[in-house]
């Protein structure tokens, strides 16, 4: 059974400088509250894995948490750039970061391979693209039956994965509904899994025996963090704050404006 602790305690107990950390969630269920807590606790030199870095990694990169980012699409969806991510890559601010760049197909397969305990994933991908020439972690394997050459990438195996979900019961079983993304894979691929939830309930009330439920024994830490996915959303509990995603473009564009936001909205908050 997982530990039930506060968000500060969960982050303090699990995330260390230099760790490889994944805060996943595909548009839906992005664990912003946990990301802010990592910023507040001043973690450094993290390798951050996410398919879509999104605002959460833009904020963590701007705050100086990241040494390396493993990703497949680094934009503010429907809005434009991730300005803090760009500033780090283009100008080395607040410090230079390394990037390991993949396609979505590669990242999704790498998550599935990590969850499955495999060392690598193979898939039909990267055909005719320049990505393998700039990413040494893209290789090939040959089908022993047809001779077809397929792309191969290492499995994701983060030290810590943090996801947000709808709810947990008292035994720590977690229900995920709606766009389930790579939430299950991120939890199962990690050495340590932390799940923030909207609420902890007596009865999980899964709509079906086939619902996406993670057993409590496969999770290390549960945190009650209502609203913890904002400005992302939690299906059944909140809607995506698209206006905030648009507003982020202005907040993040300028270093000073970003630092003001960081001080007021993250560091001063609890």
């Amino acid at each position, binding site marked *: 059974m997982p530990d039930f602790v506060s968000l500060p305690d969960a982050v303090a107990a699990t995330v260390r400088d230099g760790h490889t950390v994944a805060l996943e969630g595909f548009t839906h269920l992005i664990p912003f509250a946990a990301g802010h807590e990592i910023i507040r606790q001043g973690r450094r030199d993290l390798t951050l894995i996410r398919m879509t870095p999104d605002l959460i990694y833009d904020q963590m990169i701007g705050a100086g948490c990241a040494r390396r980012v493993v990703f497949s699409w680094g934009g503010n969806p429907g809005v434009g750039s991730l300005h803090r991510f760009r500033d780090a890559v283009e100008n080395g601010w607040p410090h230079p970061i390394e990037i390991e760049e993949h396609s*979505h197909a590669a990242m999704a397969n790498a998550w599935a391979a990590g969850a499955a305990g495999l060392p690598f994933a193979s898939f039909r991908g990267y055909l*005719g693209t320049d990505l393998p020439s700039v990413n040494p972690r893209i290789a090939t394997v040959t089908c022993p039956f047809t001779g077809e050459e397929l792309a191969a990438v290492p499995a994701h195996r983060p030290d810590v994965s943090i996801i947000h979900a709808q709810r947990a019961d008292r035994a720590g079983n977690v229900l995920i509904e709606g*766009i389930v993304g790579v939430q299950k894979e991120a939890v199962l691929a990690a050495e340590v899994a932390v799940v923030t939830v909207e609420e902890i309930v007596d009865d999980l009330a899964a709509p079906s025996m086939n619902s996406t439920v993670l057993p409590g024994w496969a999770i290390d830490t549960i945190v009650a963090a209502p609203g913890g996915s904002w400005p992302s959303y939690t299906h059944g509990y909140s809607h*995506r704050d698209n*206006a905030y995603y648009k507003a982020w473009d202005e907040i993040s564009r300028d270093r000073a404006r970003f630092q003001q936001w960081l001080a007021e909205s993250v560091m001063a908050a609890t």
Partner: protein
Amino acid sequence: MSDYTPTEVMTVSAARALSNDDVCFVGIGAPSAACNLARLTHAPDITLIYESGTIGTRPDVLPLSIGDGELAETSLTTVAVPEIFRYWLQGGRITVGFLGAAQMDRYGNINTTVIGPYGAPAVRLPGGGGAPEIASSCGRVFITMRHSPRALVERVDFVTSLGFGVTGTERAALGIATRGPALAITDLCVMEPDPETNELVVTSLHPGATRAGVAEATGWDVRFAAALGETAPPTEPELATLRDLHRRTNAAHAVSP
């Protein structure tokens, strides 16, 4: 009705290229608008798949991101992201994939990664996302983008997604059985690959666009089809449906929930 924007012509043209039987892998922005316009007009049974895992989705409001709640709520079914890329995209079940581009060359090779050298980029773009495998696994690829000489270039700085390759022959050489870029729709014209060389040639000019204007806005020495057509202007129902969709969408995205 002459009061429409070049972007509207682009979106309407893209929508018209879709049929009821298509299964579309939909990107955000113009492709999403085009696919949903098709669904709300002549192709009510078209299947829309978003890479967030929603299959057969019928949103009333366009999503801002690729995984807005509206997409799951109106889907036939919503599956995990690894499944979307493995069973549905790689499985060869998508008839049309939509791609946008920061740069595209005459063979439909696309760059959405960097402007300038990869290691020291002048502009770091978002990157490939689903595009590298959309480009190879979908039956056909439709490209929508603004027409400018900085966007339609002689040579892309980085091949994020394969079109027909640098000489137009690499797709076949790599053993890729899908068609590749079948249609590029800009705000000025429609381009299609030459059946012999795979070079994208202009096959239809949008209302108001000229050969000279297209040539000036294209970074390579662009060719025009012998039978150059003119894009039919958006009809009143098309425009009304598209504008209603955008109106609902803007209202929904303007305020925090």
